[in-house]
């Protein structure tokens, strides 16, 4: 019974993500028009099902007459890049520090935990905006900002899980069995913490997509002419009363990406647990 449930979660979540990835990779091929091409005659053109629609602009056009569909497709590239790169880097940094704090204890733990305390005393969105404002806009800065802000999420969870694992008697058994400290950490503790980390990674990827969108929304992500979902939302917000769809489509895509990642995470959580996997 569990088997069937986790299958659909992983299948639907993973399938949606795979589709998004394919779209991002093949964007130049798939996009019907150049996303940067402006056509003032097509300004705020409605999508295909409404009157006055243009069949070459299936999802309508924005305030500068650019094709919404093509922009959506191209914007999948920065979104997914940020999700993967920032997600993985955040995971590496946060997990390393969390393992260290949880396993070493003592001063190392106090130091890392205090650092996490300080870090989480900043409103994360504000910190992201500030970082990007300071190091300059662009994909790199967005990624750096996400890593610098969100490592605490991994660190906290991994630390407490590591602590919980070190209370287990199998760790004592490993000491009696002559394993070295480092080996115990990597061969015994880490495999038990890893599933949690992977689930967190899917969560982190969805957060990265959102943060990227937020930064674009505030105008601080990639350069303003290359399309991003957040940027499109910001533009749509300006014309919301005349053309709601300009904002609605990128929002929908973000929603799909985020839901897919969460679904995948839920599915993996059961799939990676040897006891639940039965």
């Amino acid at each position: 019974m569990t088997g069937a449930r986790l299958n659909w979660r992983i299948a639907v979540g993973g399938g949606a993500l795979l589709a998004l990835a394919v779209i991002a990779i093949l964007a130049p091929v798939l996009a019907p028009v150049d996303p940067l091409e402006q056509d003032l005659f097509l300004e705020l053109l409605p999508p295909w099902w409404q009157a006055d629609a243009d069949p070459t602009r299936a999802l309508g056009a924005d305030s500068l007459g650019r094709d919404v569909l093509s922009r959506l497709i191209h914007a999948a590239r920065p979104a997914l890049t940020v999700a993967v790169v920032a997600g993985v880097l955040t995971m590496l940094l946060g997990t390393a520090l969390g393992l260290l704090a949880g396993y070493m204890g003592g001063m190392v733990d106090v130091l890392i935990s205090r650092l996490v305390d300080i870090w989480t005393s900043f409103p994360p969105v504000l910190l992201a905006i500030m970082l990007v404002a300071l190091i300059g806009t662009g994909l790199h800065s967005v990624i750096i900002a996400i890593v610098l802000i969100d490592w605490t999420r991994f660190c906290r969870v991994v630390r407490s899980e590591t602590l919980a694992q070190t209370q287990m008697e199998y760790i004592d058994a490993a000491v009696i069995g002559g394993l070295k400290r480092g080996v115990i950490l990597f061969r015994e503790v880490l495999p038990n913490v890893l599933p949690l980390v992977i689930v967190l990674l899917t969560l982190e990827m969805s957060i990265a997509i959102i943060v990227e969108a937020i930064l674009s929304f505030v105008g601080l992500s990639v350069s303003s002419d290359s399309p991003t979902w957040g940027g499109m939302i910001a533009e749509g917000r300006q014309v919301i009363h005349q053309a709601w769809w300009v904002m609605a489509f990128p929002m929908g895509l973000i929603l799909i990406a985020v839901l897919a990642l969460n679904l995948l995470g839920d599915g993996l959580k059961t799939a990676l647990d040897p006891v639940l996997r039965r």
Partner: protein
Amino acid sequence: MTGPLLQVRDLTLSLPDRSRGKLFAKPPMTDILRGISLDLPRGESLGIVGESGSGKTSLGRTLVRLYQPTSGQILFDGADITTLDEGAMRTHRKHMQMIFQDPQSSLNPRRRVGEIVAQPVLALGVERDRRAALKRADLALDRAGLGHAFARRYPHELSGGQRQRVGIARAIATEPRLIVADEIVSGLDVSTQAQILALLNDLKQDMGLSLIFISHDLSVVRVLADRVMVMLGGRVVEEGTSADVFQGPRHAYTRQLIDAVPLPVIEPGWLDTKPATEGTRMVDIKGQTVLVTGTSRGIGRVFVDALLAAGAARVYAATRDGSGSHSDARVVAVKLDVTNSADISTAAQTCADTTVLINNAGINFNSKLLETDQVDAAAAEITTNYLGTLNMCRAFAPVIEGNGGGAIVNMASILARVNLPLMGSLCASKAAVYSMTQGIRAELASKGIAVFAVLPGAVDTDMTKDFPPPKAAPADIVAEVLAGIQAGEADIYAGDMAKGVSGGLAADRPAVIAEMAGYV
């Protein structure tokens, strides 16, 4: 090789007690093990029994150096392993293995049974090659009665008994000389338990193993142990061959433990029998409200801290002038001069929740009986030491009884049993206290109040500065007194000197009297 496989000398273990931490200060240390010594000959098995909190599990873990002892010495196969670091320990680990209490948490859920059993074989260098190690694991699994077919399974696929067999296989895979088994059958059904016990018994004989078998269940220990050690409060209460201990326990606590085990035989009236001991009821200091007299100095002051550490809910610290303050909020200063009956009756009202009374106040003029100017010193000693204590008992016995019972502890002296003419008048007053205490004990026996007489030897306080050594440290005396109360020893001989004199009196009374007389 000859000599015992494991020798432990005076092992102590203290761990920080985080439940009693204060702002900024480091948490205080709690003694988990206090002065444990034992010898384990090769091929023998030692059972360690005790109730929860006795320190038996901590002892097992300290022996295999999962915990670092605070002091003392552990010799394994002649080598001192007390302070070895993990790297140096590894050469010994091959020969000393452990089976854990909880087979669920002691097996890594993400490893197959075969890998779990092979792990120490590889890590301890018994085999260098992974395949050879797995082969050895198969053999160990066969030997543990599980069969090597289980090597491919995961722990969660096994039953509790099967998991415990994996734990056993892991422990025997390196062919150790010593195995420490901690409560390994406590979660199992009787029929599974019997199988596991039988298996360990076979392995012990086939492999010539030495076994340390820790359990709360005396009956289970009897099955495997050649010798038995009974623990209480981090100390060894009694030790001996298992036949001796189980058939003729010497210590009151052991007797009480044995008496409480329900055997599967019909025995009308068993439920109502109380242990027939020459001792008295055990009293747990934890949660009690204790009144201690004479806390301005010496033993009295040490008592206050020791009682707090033992978990007393409140301590009334009585001094003659009611002075003194303590950082712990549980301590209440009381003005109480035991020679003043008005003080005593006031205290009986203000300290109406007292459940344990420790009559510690006393004076000492170091005077001989005849070779002294006046009889004043003797009168004062009798007034304070004897009458003061008696009046306190008279005032507080009804208080304690009203609170549902408790204890009275009277500080006498080993000199109550033999006169040291150098301070002859003091000895007489202490003898009076000792005699009076026995009488009170009889009177209060049916009222739920345990009465203890403490007979310490010379203690190193300013009151005894003229007394010749050896003198015990106040803290040691107090620790022994509290241990005696918690173990239900009626007469508590605290300190080596007191035990020595007491033993001497039993063996050759005239010799002791002559020796004491010699100090004049």
